[in-house]
């Protein structure tokens, strides 16, 4: 397959759909037919990219930030701040909950599906990492050890390892086959205890491996000077997976929090931030500062890369589901 032509500096909005509530998170389905976005009104909205046809998925009783698909794109799985997991038939004209149950005590903050689509991992405020059989929803394992709310989870592309990151930036590396903790890493720049406000701030708000599994990237906020006003910089901590050492901290000279992060196969990371307006940052190689920065119309809440590697979904606080393109200007997607 010939990689598509992309130009980060040509990053621009292609289309947008309005909604009645601010968004929380978004994902493209693996076939690239739909974009799904959760909103502050507890619904998930689905748009067909080609037609713009919109349907609402109703089933959660709180906000949804955890979402993913089986590799074939048949099932859309969501985890809510209501602690519930829901399996939705992603391609149905009007998806209804197919399987729904209380999976965690308190918020589910993130979920991940392993590369072969057999396992689902979920994390949340009950400090438990749970492994489920994706096909049946059967609970396979509960992994404990985190001491603060678990903010994110990601499977290593090799499928045998799982990474989880908590509020304090503690990353735990779990063996999936052995269901045990192997080691602990630290995304230290993403955590601070604010002594003035007497509260912790931090955690990986976005977390992804690169496709080769060489790096684990954690996005959040760093250099916080006022936790309760959100005065800090959007940052991505890049950890070398084999050594566990901090490789680099990508940092932008703006205010806000990284809420979305994707790796583009053409060897750059795209992060979006919110909190003080919205920004898109493009990072590459060992350069800590972004090689391209672009102002977004509003604070970003979620981000995903389309399977065509050219389109980008960004949902935001201004109730807009926006589709961007990375295609060079004067080219066709």
């Amino acid at each position: 397959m010939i990689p598509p032509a992309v130009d980060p500096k040509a990053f621009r909005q292609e289309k947008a759909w309005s909604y009645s509530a601010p968004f929380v998170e978004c994902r493209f389905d693996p076939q690239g037919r739909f974009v799904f976005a959760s909103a502050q009104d507890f619904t998930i909205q689905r748009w067909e990219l080609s037609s713009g046809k919109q349907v609402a998925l109703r089933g959660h009783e709180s906000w949804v930030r955890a979402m993913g698909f089986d590799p074939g794109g048949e099932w859309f799985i969501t985890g809510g701040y209501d602690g519930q997991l829901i399996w939705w038939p992603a391609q149905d004209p009007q998806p209804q909950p197919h399987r729904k149950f209380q999976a965690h005590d308190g918020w589910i903050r993130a979920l991940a599906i392993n590369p072969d689509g057999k396992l689902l991992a979920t994390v949340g405020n009950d400090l438990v990492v749970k492994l489920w059989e994706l096909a049946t929803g059967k609970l396979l394992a509960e992994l404990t050890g985190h001491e603060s709310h678990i903010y994110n989870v990601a499977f290593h592309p090799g499928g045998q390892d799982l990474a989880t990151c908590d509020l304090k930036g503690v990353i735990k590396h779990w063996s999936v086959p052995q269901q045990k903790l192997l080691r602990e890493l630290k995304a230290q720049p993403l955590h601070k205890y604010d002594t003035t406000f007497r509260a912790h701030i931090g955690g990986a708000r976005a977390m992804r491996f690169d496709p080769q599994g060489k790096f684990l990237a954690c996005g959040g906020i760093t250099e916080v000077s006022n936790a309760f006003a959100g005065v800090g910089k959007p940052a991505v901590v890049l950890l070398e997976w084999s050594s566990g050492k901090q490789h680099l901290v990508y940092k932008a000279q703006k205010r806000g929090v990284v809420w979305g992060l994707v790796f583009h196969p053409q060897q750059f990371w795209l992060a979006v931030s919110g909190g003080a307006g919205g920004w898109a940052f493009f990072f590459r190689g060992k350069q800590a500062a972004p090689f391209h920065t672009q102002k977004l119309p509003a604070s970003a809440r979620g981000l995903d890369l389309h399977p065509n590697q050219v389109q980008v979904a960004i949902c935001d606080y201004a109730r807009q589901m926006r589709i961007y393109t990375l295609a060079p200007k004067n080219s066709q997607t």
Partner: protein
Amino acid sequence: MKCRYACGSVEHVIGRRAFLGSLAGVTGLGTVGFFTQPAVAQAMKRQQKHLLVIYLAGGLSQLESWDPKPGTDTGGPFRAIKTSVPGVHICELLPYTAKQMHRMALVRSLNTRNVDHGMGRYQMTHGRNRGGLNVPHLGALTARLLHPKEHPLPGFIRVGERGNIKEAGYLGPEYASLGLPDGKLPPVAQRPKGLTVQDDLRRHDFLRRVNDHFLARRRTAETEAYTHSFEQALQLMEQQEAFRIEQEPQKLREQYGDHPFGRHCLLARRLIERGVTYVQVTHTNYDTHHENFNFHLEQLGEFDRTFATLLEDLASRGLLEHVLVVVMSEFGRTPRINERFGRDHWGKSWSIALAGCGIQHGAVIGKTNKNGTEVVEREVDHGHLFHTYLRALGIDSSGTVEVNGREMPIADPAREPIEELLA
């Protein structure tokens, strides 16, 4: 309004609390010339009542606590849960407190028309808007009206923050707060190592005689406050036991929580039990312009169990009949959720909680609209609350005090108690 000394001069004096180390270099005024009205004096003779204020600094979100609006555009991600009072729901962040609701009451219709921290703090603890009269803090006022004169412990203690001598207002520094920022006695109130009790008392007796000799010729506000500071420090030295929460059973200490707020609430109960009239415990911080929901999870996670344990503990000891417990902030938080998942300052429609001392069990006063942006029933403000606190404590809130020949209403005359809140 300043309080004059009998000599007729207005003096700036060194306050005893400043001397005790809770606040340095602050000036205040004496108290001679203060007389209560008969009704107030009568109130003082009744069985002593106490006020315990839990101050959630920064501005607790009413939507994440006492007045949840789940499923609305302002509701946020949390759900409402049932309480021990049928039909009354509060935010799911307060599961332990929900089980104590039969001992509590809620006011959900506060409109204080203010979004400034300093003004809000003043309103909620002074019962009026700032400006004009130098009215005393609720703690100073209740210490003056209810605290036995010869009691060895101060009448007004702040736990978790510094004292503030200015808050005594026209009552003078004698009624200012003793601040215990870390929940421990200041070093000046602890006898130096190597000094025996006998030697210390002899030393103090000598100081007292020298002071008496001086006061016989030159009695001033300064010297009086200075002398009083030494007396208070000496009394506190004999009251060390009151501050030793380690004497409490381990299980109870665990229930209160192994964190400053838990320890401070346990200390507050011990102080109230030993006769302190007004104790204010501060829990910080709720000023959540950014990530309101994460921070309320964090803060209320700490508050909830401790507060519920405190109510249970007070009730089981029979103290709740005589102790008014108030959970307050300087204001609430905006129904609108901002771009940082935060909520900003909001004084237009917010809530407080109360318990004990004759407050109606399970009462819910007032109502906001569907998404909490307006009060739609029984609007009240800080002035009404101030009257209500005083009435619950057995004080005629419509009474006056005489300060330098001027009759001073102890609460805002334009307001009155929330009668339906009082049993």
